[in-house]
């Protein structure tokens, strides 16, 4: 006798939201993975573009890495707090994550401004095209994450039910960590290579 083992709504045993976000991240992995693969191969074939990449502000990017890693930490803490149903802690960690994300974008903007002032525009050469393309797409993802986090923070502050908050913090967190992971690879590939 087989068959009567399923539960409607969650046949796979994984909540739909989590499945959905992982599928989304799989597709995003293809986008960033394809882009990074192309970048690495082109850069390798062109001999490394070191004369261009040495104009980058490694310390700004290192600070940004620190900030993004820390924001992942606060995000993970927000999820832990949500699982414990601690509304204040959840909210504070979400707000910290948002603050760190804003800081990241601020430093990124300073970095762009400095590069542009020095005359390095997207069409200054292949490295700069990739630099602005890759970091720009990543920054757009950070911005998207910030919007999602802000909406979530408002909902949490307004006392949305834990059932929902837990799941939304987890989904948003998965996305936010993914954006962090992308940066973990962007940093060495763009700045340190």
């Amino acid at each position, binding site marked *: 006798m087989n068959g009567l083992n399923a539960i*409607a709504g969650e046949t796979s045993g994984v909540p739909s939201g989590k499945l959905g976000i992982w*599928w989304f991240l799989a597709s995003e992995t*293809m*986008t960033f993975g394809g*882009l990074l693969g192309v970048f690495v191969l082109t850069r390798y074939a062109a001999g490394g573009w070191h004369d261009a990449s040495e104009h980058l502000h490694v310390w700004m990017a290192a600070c940004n890495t620190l900030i993004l890693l820390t924001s992942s930490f606060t995000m993970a803490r927000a999820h832990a707090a949500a699982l414990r149903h601690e509304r204040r802690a959840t909210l504070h960690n979400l707000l910290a994550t948002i603050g760190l994300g804003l800081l990241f974008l601020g430093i990124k903007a300073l970095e762009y401004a400095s590069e542009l002032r020095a005359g390095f525009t997207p069409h200054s050469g292949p490295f700069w095209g990739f630099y602005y*393309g890759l970091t720009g797409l990543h920054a757009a993802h950070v911005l998207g994450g910030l919007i999602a986090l802000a909406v979530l923070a408002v909902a949490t502050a307004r006392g949305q039910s834990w059932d929902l908050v837990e799941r939304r913090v987890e989904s948003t967190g998965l996305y936010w960590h993914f954006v962090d992971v992308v940066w973990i690879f962007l940093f060495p590939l763009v700045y340190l290579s």
Partner: protein
Amino acid sequence: MTEAHVAVDPHASAVGMWRRYVFSTDHKMIGRQYMLLSLLMAVLGGATAYVMRWQLAWPQSSVPFTGWLPESLAYQGVIDPAFYNQLVTMHGTIMIFFVAMPMLLGGLGNCLVPLMIGAPDMAFPRLNMLSFWTFFAASMLLLSSFLVPAGAASAGWTMYAPLSARPIYTGVYWGINLWLIAVALEFVAFLLGGINLVVTTINLRASGLTFMRLPLMVWMELTSAVLFLLSVGPLIAGVLLLLLDRLAGTSFFVPNDGDPLLWQHLFWFFGHPEVYVLLLPGVGAVLEILPVFARKPVFGYRAIVWSTAATGVLSFMVWAHHMFISGIDPRLATPFSITTILISVPLAIVLFAMIATLWRGSIRFATPMLWALGFIATFLVGGLTGIFVGAAALDVYFHGTYFVVAHFHYALFPSVFFGGFAAIYFWYPKMFGRMLSERLGQLHFALTFVAFNAVFLPMFVLGLGGHMRRIYDPTVYEFLRPLMPLHVAATVATIVLLFSQLPFVINVIGSRRFGRPAGPNPWRAATLEWTTPSPPPHGNFASAPTVYRGPYEYSVPGAGEDVLPQNQPPRLRAATPSAV
């Protein structure tokens, strides 16, 4: 039962027209919205085909009914070569991205998957609505590109760089920018829709509905959505880079810094799985219809499922066969030739399984069955002719000719239109509660079948003659002049093919009012969607169904009836035969 569903139906009277018909979150309404939009776009795609075909058959002559076009596009009705390129480009773009995708994934996927798995709706109803309206916005952006100065995109639906990467090469500026934005948005729409389909299938299956009891249509939609999700990423990246090339002056796809071949790789890494994204739902519809009208199970269910999975995996490893003569490293041709030819094996198994399903059946030739059988016959041609162009050495000659055009129309037209029409004739009673006219349906099928073959068979011959595609005026070339009668034949057939759709339009509009009421299960089919009223209420099922068996239990020996619905509890053993 009625009370139960009124209780959960937020759409009952309290909800306004606006929420009910426009910003609906009901998968059936969203599915119908996709369907309607895709059919409207198909009219436009057909119109572009008509203008192109006329120019090809009678070059430099005035095309009837185009007098309203501005002189820059058609001077006294004679099509301008630049406008011809726009038509070529937009025909492909519209048909692939704005007809086939919304019809097969958005329309059929939305309407059918939740019903077939016994779910009340898609997993994310609001995301579903968002994906439709994103798609709608993409469609409007694409259409608006016809109206901007210098007109629509004209670099071919494959948008090959560097022709597409620098406005000076085509003279089109915003047309191509809008094309890129519209296509990127379309991808986002189907990314959201695809995630929804996949999660719905994984998570909302009725109790007892294991993967090996899923209707094959659901398997096909699932595979199709997964293929799309995993292949589209690099092309989204590519589209962004191409936009940067156009707007910010970068050189990702322009030498000397960039590489035109990179665009082709990114495009076809998506483009080839996309072929299967478009093919599989059509195959699924046919596989649902064959057992119902042959009154017997699908032959080799598991073989079909595994073949489909194999096709999906292989489809990621064949893309460079679109690039044999594009200047890629010639050593790549061998592995990609092998994978290309390998992929014919699982597809052959599916096709053989379709035919074997008829063996020892009791076949009724209702309209959906006619379309399904038409699919087998025409797709057979599409599949077999793929072997010619999959062989690298022969592709050198056939690449970029009408042979390729004929081949992919024989592969995609069966899926999108034969599969699509089969599905519409089969499930229209479910979606609208009324039967379509058999007589009009048969007329529609007969005309379309004959006209379709009359359009595209001559194109194979044009291809044998070496006729390049995307040529504005074949009479320029000495070696093409003897082929002109074939162009005339194909054009006349195109016009017939377009008019052949009239019975369909009359049928779907007329039958909504005058069709015979369908009842819940007019075809006496076994899958879950037929256990709910036609049309299904909001929420689909009065109570969550339970599944006891596979989807194709027809003519089971000793069952009494010739169909055992999936949700009918098994009869208790001999002791109490009457206690059903």
